[in-house]
């Protein structure tokens, strides 16, 4: 492995690329988008190269960089990639060029648009690689600003409301997160995520808090629960987890296509990633205490969101609710990790399956949901902005390629065997069933509803009588086919050869599960 600071390069590349685009700044030429695509492909190449050199068997962070930063606050610059984050880095690197391609036709101030897009990507990559709270939070927040402006300036009719809701909700979560971490810092004098996790596992946080604040042991335990709540809120809003999801449907519906792809594909994973990287390792005890209500909330989220998706008529909203639904499976898989597997012979096996499923599901959902929003965007563009379920019908006949490819994505989302979604959901449920049978059973209702609304959607849009006005509905152009093809291919590849990615996370899964069993 070379000594170059690859992660910093990976993060800075889009950051500087965005600045370059903005400074080159000509609105009329195609250069901004070309430059953006170039940078994204460069990042993708780098990410793939890193994945190729990644040792999936090890649980330790790799490509690690560590430098002193703010000695007064014990802040270090510490970045690295491990099994929890490697798929997320790959996903982000993969989604960004897709989002750029999906935004090829942006006509209003393209330089700014693409610059913001790249900065958003930089924020994501930074979040997924940071191992110190300080710059992790920096990137976490940094990704908000470009997202806000992308929604605000290029969104739909209710973009003002959407952007504000998105921003204020997420900031509310961030503030509680920040306050919680400051309390941790106060107790331990550390901002390092891995070191904090070590302390959290050994149960040293509450006594430290008691010592620093002069509280009683019991009060400190209560305080830790409050701190846990703050962190939980931050991630729950971002993911989102019911009942903190209310910003999402509007935001996804109003954001421009490329942005929605990044939002649902990668931004929502920041929350999930936070659960895995921060919440569970640092607060295992507290999570256990709150486990039952959390599981109930998750299950309720799965079922309610599927039901809500069924009731929607706007395609984008359907997929937005479906996103909440799919992330619900991830949450389910994550929370059951802490269920006591008392009656089981080898609970680690089930836990490993669930965790691997969650990691893969995060990747899969990112890819699939991004594709779905992309296709919806293409559909709406062809239909002059219409994207109501009832507006269409029989498109299969006039646009077979479009319907075929979008169909693959829908079936992937639905969890059809042979496609990627099946593998990850299967793994999750394989873990959940033995660990929390009632939750798994209840979630099946959600699975069923998902099948219903997706099939309903297929039926209404692709089949049925073709409306007169869609007779001239153009099929996908070759350019569009080429652009979407790699992602579709990936859906199939993972579906038949999941080991391609699963081998990257094996070490981390084993390490994570081991650490839970103290």
């Amino acid at each position, binding site marked *: 492995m070379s000594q170059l600071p690859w992660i910093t390069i990976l993060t800075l590349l889009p950051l500087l690329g965005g600045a370059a685009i903005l400074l080159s700044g000509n609105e009329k030429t195609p250069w901004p988008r070309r430059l953006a695509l170039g940078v994204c492909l460069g990042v993708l190449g780098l990410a793939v190269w890193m994945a190729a050199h990644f040792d999936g068997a090890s649980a330790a962070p790799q490509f690690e960089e560590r430098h002193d*930063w*703010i*000695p*007064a*606050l014990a802040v270090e610059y510490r970045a690295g990639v491990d099994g929890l984050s490697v798929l997320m880095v790959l996903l982000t690197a993969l989604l960004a060029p897709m989002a750029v391609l999906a935004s090829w036709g942006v006509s209003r101030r393209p330089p700014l648009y693409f610059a913001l897009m790249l900065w958003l990507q930089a924020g994501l990559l930074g979040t997924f690689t940071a191992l110190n709270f*300080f*710059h992790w*939070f*920096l990137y*976490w*927040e*940094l990704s*908000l*600003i470009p997202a*806000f*402006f992308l929604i*605000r*300036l290029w969104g739909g*009719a209710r*973009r*003002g*409301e959407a*952007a*504000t809701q998105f*921003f*204020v909700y997420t*900031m*509310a979560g961030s*503030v*509680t997160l*920040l*306050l919680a971490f*400051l*309390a941790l*810092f*106060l107790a331990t004098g550390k901002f390092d995520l891995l070191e904090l996790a070590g302390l959290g596992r050994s149960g040293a946080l509450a006594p430290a808090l008691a010592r*620093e*604040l*002069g509280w009683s042991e019991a009060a400190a335990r209560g*305080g830790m629960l*409050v701190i846990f709540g703050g962190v939980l809120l931050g991630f729950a809003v971002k993911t989102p987890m019911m009942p903190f999801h209310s910003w999402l449907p509007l935001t996804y519906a109003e954001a421009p296509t490329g942005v929605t792809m990044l939002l649902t594909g990668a931004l929502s994973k920041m929350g999930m990633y936070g659960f895995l990287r921060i919440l569970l390792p640092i607060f295992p005890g507290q999570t256990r205490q709150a486990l039952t209500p959390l599981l109930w909330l998750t299950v309720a989220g799965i079922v309610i969101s599927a039901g809500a998706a069924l009731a929607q008529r706007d395609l984008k909203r359907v997929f937005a609710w479906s996103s909440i639904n799919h992330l619900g499976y991830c949450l389910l898989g994550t929370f059951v990790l802490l269920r006591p597997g008392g009656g089981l012979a080898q609970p680690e096996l089930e836990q490993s399956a669930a965790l691997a499923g969650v990691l893969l599901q995060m990747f899969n959902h990112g890819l699939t949901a991004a594709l779905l929003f992309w296709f919806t965007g293409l559909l709406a563009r062809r239909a002059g902005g219409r994207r109501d379920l009832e507006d269409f019908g029989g498109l299969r006949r006039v646009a077979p390629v479009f319907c075929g490819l979008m169909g693959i994505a829908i079936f992937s989302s639905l969890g059809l065997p042979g496609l990627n979604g099946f593998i990850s959901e299967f793994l999750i449920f394989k873990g959940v069933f033995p660990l929390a049978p009632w939750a798994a059973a209840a979630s099946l209702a959600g699975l069923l509803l998902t099948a219903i609304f997706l099939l309903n959607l297929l039926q209404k849009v692709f089949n049925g009588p073709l409306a007169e006005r869609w007779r001239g509905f153009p099929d996908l152009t070759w350019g569009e086919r080429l652009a979407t093809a790699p992602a579709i291919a990936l859906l199939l590849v993972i579906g038949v050869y999941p080991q391609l990615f699963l081998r990257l996370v094996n070490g981390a899964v084993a390490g994570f599960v081991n650490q839970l069993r103290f």
Partner: protein
Amino acid sequence: MLAWTIYFSFAAALALGCLPERRAAAARRLALLAALAGLAAAVAGALRVAPGTVAVLADAAWIPSLGIRYQLAADGLSVTLALLTGLAGVAGVLFSWNIERRTPEFFALYFALLGGVYGVFLSQDLFLLFVFYEIAIIPKYFLIAIWGSTRREYGAMKLALYSFAGSALVFAGMLILYVAAGARTMNLPELAAVDFPRGLQLWVFPLVFAGFGVLAGLWPFHTWAPTGHVAAPTAASMLLAGVVMKLGAYGCLRVAMGLMPLGLADWASPVLGLASWRELFALLAVAGIVYGALAALVQGDFKFVIGYSSVSHMGFVLLGLMTLQITGLSGAALQMFSHGIIAGLLFAVVGRMIYDRAHTRDLGALAGLQLGAALPFAAVSFTLAAAAAMGLPGFSGFVAELQVLVGAWRASPVLAVATGFGILAGVAYSIRVLQRAFFPGPAERAGNPPPAAPLVPAPITAPERLGAVLLITVSVAVGLFPQLLLRWIVPALHAPWFERLLQGGRL
């Protein structure tokens, strides 16, 4: 070297005051030169002050019969704030380039104010500090009353009277301490070494703290701030929010808390559930944070939003002071610097870039003007400034607020949580003005039809660009590398001066 910042400023004030009124261009150039000279002296001087030491800059007998000396010295806090003053001074000149009326006079008063501010930060003698402190009051009045806008005479008078009332409290406290210490010395370290009786400290401390607190925007004595800021011309708002409010906070720390650490100790018996002045002032600071943010949320005048935001941000400084431990105190010091830069930028955008072109600051009217498209530079500057102001990481405000919050957690988790609410309200008002003023959607535009003739604003001039870039760069640089300043601040707080404060503060 640092002492020259004071001399440069007053010399510039004198020279500019002698310049005939029609020599506006020469006045501007001279002003820029003087501001740059001040900044250069501040930077060069700062580099000579080794962290953790106190560099004596000047020491001479002044009024020997009363034991008063002309004594200038700099430690890490002084250095930080002198640097801030230098930066704010340069930026203020750049954003005043379009002052056409009575230009030399404007800059003369500007530099008189600046000289006073430098003087306060560098004084080592309480009497001298107070002299500089009061010198800064009068130029403010004239800057606002002559070159201001909305209700300028009211705003100016209110500001002057509040400042003066505050300084009367300080004056009283200073006299009492001087007499109690035997009327032999005004030297700050010597006074700090005197063991004033606890009873005395307990009642003089609030006097002095509140007196300085008036200028620092301590709630509920903050009401001069919004009206004063709004009425002031751009450069004056920048200095006012940027450095003058810091005078108050600096005085709170250096004089009130430094000389009377026992004033923060617990009272004999709790009153209304509060056990000490420390708790009371911490509560007021949080009230300021939350109240300022909420008030900013409902303002219709763009500049009032920024004015109230200053109250909110200064609340962080005061809260940091009341934590009485290194992290919180250094956070407060860093927040002083950070807010100075950020508030300067905010006022520059609103007062200079927007108001001087659109001639309105009404958020509703601005919504009709499409400023985001018409003045992209202003929009970008304001966005960055707003991001910095709401405490996003990567900007200077974040590290500062982070440290303050760490301190607040220790002092009282309830306060920390209330502060979190204030931060959130801060986000909300930043987003609100950002949307209304620069990126209005159909909803905001509905009631405000665009003007008959579309606004074709004059392009943003080079000085404005320079000033904005300067301030943004500094904020980001400090945000990413707070060590730049913390290397001075933290050792300064470990000085014997604050030792007793840090010990006296533990609840």
